[in-house]
């Protein structure tokens, strides 16, 4: 791999950190990534994360790339610019569709504009937002950005910067929608956008012509908040990202900190964590199933799904005193030990859930109307899934083996037996079935673990104030919606210098305009249900 890198860019700085890290000049970034992307043996075609950075004097971007064929191979590419007034970097949207929204987010947060990105509007923030919040010199004076109660106009005109063949930069604008388009707002206050997503949809009769994703209606600035907090304090934010996979997200952050601080987690804690994760995954998939059915108009199915989920929540409630936001994982172990009847309750739940899965099949999976609404609707090919970085049950529905638990095993996942559910159709129905199958696999994992929880401590000895050694740390887990990643850059303080979360839902949403094109308005909602995104996860 180093050969490829050095062949493409001879003066790249290669370091072996937690991951292979390459630092290049902005001009060389595109050729380097192109070389990695197009190499035959192991194409680095999966953009896991695109992280904007402010190193004080320099502004830059970090790319975490991986290969769809072998997800354990990862490379970090760093590039940066000195110009803080008008920072310009090169876009990689021509190779990775996933980069579109990510680059727009970096623009909103850091003010870095990307050359050759066709749509350089701000993502998450309003167009007239003063300042770039994630820069270290951001002025948080509330008078600059007052609260308003008057709707702002949403601009249809997207600026861009293009570089032509001789390296000349030209700025221009494009229209997102035509003058005469019939544009309808789906969201933010809408029953079926799974939160507060805003899809501006142009319709041709009933048929969706174009979708413009507009997000940020729940952007809470978690990453900025993290920079002023100690590591234990950050933990509670992860629960509130993808609140349906609260425990799993928190597990990721805990593991990232533990890895950096070299804390050994007791075996009992690991077992509890994995059982809780899988229970959480079941509850997440149940909500996904329910919401999907509800989107297709089956309210009763929604009620059934939530009913089964209550059993999981009861276990959570008794274990850690929270139903949705569980607060279970802490750095070095878990906060609460299991309660005496934990095993009994979990073991009662497993056959119950299996029985209900059969009922779900009778009720919905075979239903002629439901099939008409799902089969061959919202097709996402494997190539597109990789390019848009759609992971999780949705990505696996397109035939891409992308289960982090298999490819980059963490915690106990290399010790338990489970199968990765893959379907090749790439339609709504494949995604739908994948979720139901994954519930079954999760039950299987829990079955193996629940009787073997070892005795012992639940919490390792951790210093009262945790300081991570200087460096960059990554950790990915398989959350309910796909690969959830945590990145921490530490300067050795008790606060992180920069925290970034990879959101699986962002990828799912960015693929929506592609898979909904030429589908009917009704199916647009159904496809959204099958992609199963959680908006606070995207907006952070």
């Amino acid at each position, binding site marked *: 791999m180093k050969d490829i890198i050095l062949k493409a860019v001879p003066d790249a700085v290669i370091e072996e950190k937690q991951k292979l890290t390459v630092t290049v000049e902005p001009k060389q970034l595109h050729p380097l990534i192109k070389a990695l992307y197009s190499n035959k043996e192991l194409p680095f075609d999966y953009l896991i994360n695109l992280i904007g950075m402010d190193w004080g004097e320099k502004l830059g971007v970090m790319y975490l790339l991986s290969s769809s064929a072998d997800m354990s191979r990862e490379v970090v590419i760093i590039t940066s610019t000195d110009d803080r007034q008008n920072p310009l970097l090169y876009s990689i949207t021509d190779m990775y569709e996933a980069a579109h929204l990510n680059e727009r987010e970096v623009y909103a947060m850091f003010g870095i504009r990307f050359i050759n990105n066709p749509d350089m509007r701000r993502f998450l923030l309003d167009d007239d937002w003063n300042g770039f919040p994630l820069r270290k010199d951001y002025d948080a004076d509330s008078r600059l950005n007052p*609260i308003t109660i008057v709707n702002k106009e949403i601009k249809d005109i997207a600026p861009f910067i293009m570089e032509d063949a001789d390296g000349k930069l030209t700025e221009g604008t494009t229209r997102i929608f035509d003058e005469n388009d019939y544009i309808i707002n789906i969201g933010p206050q809408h029953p079926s956008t799974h939160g*507060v997503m805003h899809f501006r949809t142009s319709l041709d009769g009933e048929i969706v012509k174009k979708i413009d994703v507009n997000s940020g209606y729940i952007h809470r*600035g978690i990453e900025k908040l993290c920079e002023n907090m100690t590591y234990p304090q950050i933990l509670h934010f992860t629960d509130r990202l993808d609140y349906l996979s609260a425990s799993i997200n928190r597990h990721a952050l805990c593991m990232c900190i533990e890895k950096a601080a070299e804390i050994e987690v007791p075996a009992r804690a690991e077992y509890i964590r994995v059982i809780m994760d899988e229970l959480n995954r079941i509850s997440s998939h149940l909500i996904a199933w329910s919401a999907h059915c509800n989107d297709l108009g089956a309210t009763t199915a929604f009620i059934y799904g939530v009913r089964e989920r209550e059993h999981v929540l009861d276990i959570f409630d008794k274990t850690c005193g929270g139903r949705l936001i569980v607060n279970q994982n802490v750095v070095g172990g878990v906060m609460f030990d299991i309660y005496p009847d934990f095993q009994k309750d979990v073991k009662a739940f497993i056959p119950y859930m299996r029985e209900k899965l059969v009922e779900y099949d009778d009720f919905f999976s075979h239903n002629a109307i439901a099939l008409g609404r799902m089969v061959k609707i919202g097709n996402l090919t494997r190539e597109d899934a990789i390019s848009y970085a759609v992971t999780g049950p949705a990505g696996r529905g397109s035939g891409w083996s992308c289960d982090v638990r298999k490819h980059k095993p963490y915690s106990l996942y290399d010790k338990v037996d489970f199968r990765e559910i893959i379907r090749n159709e790439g339609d709504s129905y494949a995604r739908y079935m994948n979720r139901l199958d994954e519930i079954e696999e999760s039950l299987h994992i829990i079955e193996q673990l629940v009787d073997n929880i070892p005795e012992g401590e639940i919490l390792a000895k951790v210093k009262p104030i945790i300081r991570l050694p200087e460096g960059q740390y990554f950790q990915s887990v398989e959350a309910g919606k796909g690969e959830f990643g945590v990145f921490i850059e530490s300067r050795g303080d008790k606060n992180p210098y920069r925290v970034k979360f990879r959101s699986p839902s962002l990828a799912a949403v960015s693929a929506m305009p592609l898979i909904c094109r030429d589908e009917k308005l009704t199916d647009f909602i159904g496809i959204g249900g099958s992609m199963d995104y959680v908006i606070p996860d995207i907006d952070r």
Partner: protein
Amino acid sequence: MDLKKVKIKAFPAEDFKDTDTLQAYIDELNANGTNVMVGKLDQMINWGRANSLWPLAFATSCCGIEFMAAAAAHYDLARFGMEVTRNSPRQADLMVVAGTIVHKMGPLLRRVYDQMAEPKYVVAMGACAISGGPFVNSYHVINGAEKIIPVDVYIPGCPPRPESLFYGLLQLQRKVKAEKFFDNKRIVRPYNPATLIDPKTGEALDVKNEFKAPNPLKGK
């Protein structure tokens, strides 16, 4: 009106918390004196209103899921006659603000609230909607829905469990039952004007006269 007379089924009146705030509210309403006939009519109308609060779930994040859980089989909002969730604000009586309200969402919240038909009530569900909760220090979070719209009942929790939500809704029923129908007090609503700034001029909006005056921002 004595608060002891406000009856909620299966919940003793003395068990309710925060009775003094409600008492103060009633005293304010009663300042003009009340007519017995109107009182009876009021009771009938309030009975209808209190038991038929159709919610509009302004669900932005985690609390929205708990709201859904409350509507589902285990908790069942329908028992209170509130399962008819209306997605159009025109038909809803109660707005459940469940989740964080951020700067970008503020105008929308206000618009949806404005478009609701009278009488309308607002419940702030969860820490975020009450005060900004975990994100209170963030640059993009409005510290509580009360900065945008008047809130009737605050339900703390992060997220509150469905029973908590029910308790809050019972509190709201109490408040609804204490109101006077032939009284226009509710129409002019209290605001926190300091935070509402006209984006064009940068001045504070005069919200007190907002209902009487034509839209100052439409430029008509």
